[in-house]
């Protein structure tokens, strides 16, 4: 089955690693994968995305509008930005905490996380809002937001991979000293 996954957030939030972990897990199950991500100037505090496509019959790494099975949003405004890519019955897993862009701080542009979440509630049936701040505080690390969100995404069953599959790829890609923390992070949400 073809699966299209969109990951989005702000440069530096760890979307790329999350996308690599999914890809590597799919590869080890012999599922063909293609992906694409923002590289270059936009990484300097700009909005970034990863497209990940798994399964047979995929020719390009880009996901068309209305074709994503799941959006994994690291920041609520960015989740809203990518919403046009979601399928009508698609799943959204999003972090709750908004990140204020410097430009908004300067111009006094009003930007409110709750407004974003409210909008998502009206548009998405399968919405999962994750309190990333709370999770990071409890886990005692500011570095594992990506893994917490990825874990929540796996539990929605919108991606045909298990926590164990991802842990296997983590073992290939992460330093052993970070494994314990990341394992905790992946099972953090219920």
């Amino acid at each position: 089955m073809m699966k299209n996954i969109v990951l989005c957030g702000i440069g530096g939030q760890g979307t790329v690693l999350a996308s690599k972990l999914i890809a590597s897990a799919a590869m080890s199950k012999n599922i063909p994968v293609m992906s694409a991500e923002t590289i270059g100037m936009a990484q300097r505090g700009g909005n970034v995305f990863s497209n990940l496509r798994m399964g047979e019959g995929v020719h390009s790494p880009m996901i068309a509008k209305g074709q994503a099975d799941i959006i994994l949003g690291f920041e609520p405004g960015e989740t809203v930005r990518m919403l046009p890519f979601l399928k009508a019955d698609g799943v959204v897993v999003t972090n709750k905490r908004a990140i204020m862009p410097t430009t908004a701080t300067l111009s006094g542009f009003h930007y409110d996380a709750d407004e974003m979440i409210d909008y998502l509630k009206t548009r998405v049936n399968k919405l999962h809002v994750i309190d990333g701040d709370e999770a990071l505080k409890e886990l005692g690390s500011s570095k594992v937001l990506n893994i917490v969100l990825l874990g929540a995404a796996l539990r929605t069953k919108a991606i045909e991979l298990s926590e164990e599959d991802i842990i296997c790829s983590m073992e290939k890609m992460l330093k052993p000293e970070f494994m314990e923390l990341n394992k905790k992070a992946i099972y953090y949400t219920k």
Partner: protein
Amino acid sequence: MHNEFMMGNQAIAMAAIAAGVNLVSGYPGTPSSEVLETVAKKRLDNCYVEWSVNEKSAMEVAAGAAYTGARTMVTMKQVGLNVASDPLMSLEYIGVKGGMVVLVADDPGPISSQTEQDTRTFAIYSKLPCFDPSSVEEAYQMVIDAFDYSEKYHTPVFLRPTTRVCHAYQSVLIRDEEEYHLNSIEGFVKDSKKWVIFPRLSNINHRLIEERNDELSTVFSSYSANKIINKDSQKLKAIAASGICYSYVLDVLEEIKTEEIAVLKVSTPFPFPYDLTRDFLKNHDEVLCFEELDPVIERALDHQCGIEGISCKVRGKLTKDSIRSGEYSIDLVREKIYNYLGLELKEDKASVNPPELPVRPPVLCAGCPHRASFYAVKQAMKGKKTIYCGDIGCYTLGNAMPLDMVDTCLCMGAGLGIAQGVNHIEPDTVCFAFVGDSTFFASAITGVVNAVYNQADMTLIVLDNSTTAMTGHQPHPGTGRTMMGDIVNKISIEAVLKGIGVEVVKTVDPLDYELAVDTVKEVANLPGVKAIIFKSPCIAIVKPNEPYKVCQGDCINCKRCINEIGCPAIFIDNGKVTIDNSLCTGCGLCSKICPVTAIRKAGEA
């Protein structure tokens, strides 16, 4: 052979290694940089690799090596090709002995470039054969083919992937080390009739080049990457595509399973495979073209219809059936194909009337020393008539509010010339040129020589952060490291400037705020060409200092810290000015600006 999940640029590098490449040179530029970096990591002992000082040097180094029979590759982005075009245009007349692949990554959009130029058009202009991959997997095979064609026809060849191929990831079947091609190098054989370009030689070789390209047009007509799918489709409408657009077309056709429509894929836009396309045009009434940047395929097909009297309507950019600038998205291709075939495209419903979203333009990182440098110049020049000529690099981002310190930006190294031009016409304007350390070596030195020789009044500001930050931290002549892993003498920017005859050259740490401002005030007033080197490493290559914090008891909420420097670590949280301590690198700039010293090191708060 084995499977590996890799980025397009990595696949290109691995293919070059598998093809037995002996030398790879290049200059960094998005989206091409990872090719050379991967070669440096994965090369065998028989391969030399270097970041050259600029694309022209890289081209000449690769050409010299190819003269000996070595297989070589030179890498750059599309605007880099402009810099390298001088040697390349002549090299085509001379030719090569070993295979030479000129990898030029194009950037439709543009996403991270100054221009939307099309290297396929450059291929036609320079008469070099050109390969245009449509996927990561195809790029791998194409590099290997490109080396073979180059060697067989004694010509450098272009490989021109675009961003969506360079930066896409896919699992690719790659060769194991035992399967690599082993190139035997004959060595340079003296023959001045062959290697020394003269008008007479160029005249003879030009004729041979035209004949060779005729032959290649025929040869490419049966090259496996040029093909027609659903060849026997009875439909009168057909599609032609190249590069990533071809993959988008396949994705759309996968969706519209019922339609068997013929698709022509052109992977060698030059020389164009006319023998392959002839029957395709004859068999259809209408062809819609999907290609980014210039209408290269469209023109060739239209041209063939014209001279061969084929009555097929070729549609695309020239007929305004498609967009003539910008990147093609899968959505655009989808919409055009649905319209073309008269199918109904269902509207997606997930997103209706979304709330207004903040724009997030790229900004200088929190703690970036460039911010301090720009701010020091801005403060020192308050009230003066100035022009700030910028350049290409992270520091182009100094244009953003509130810094607003880049008045012009054209191309690598141009800031120096622009500042001089303005100075000659407006002597009462204080003229500054800002250039980064990597750009200084790449293309600013001749500009300094020009300024000194022609007696301009200007101040050169070198923003020396000891790396090539924008493209991913490549070393350069000032860093003392090479891609072969050697530690070499650092070339001193200060010594270069003094050697040229710039009498006043000051090196200052921009984070030493008062000294930085005073130095600018002092130096900018002097006559002639003078230089300030603001030296402080990029925050991405050094450990951060202790973060700063706003002592809420002292803060008078004047927002000077936000409105003056725009550091992304400072934000307003529930009406209070706050520093995000996970972003703050402790550069201290904001603490110098706060009128009531409310910003202090977290430890001292």
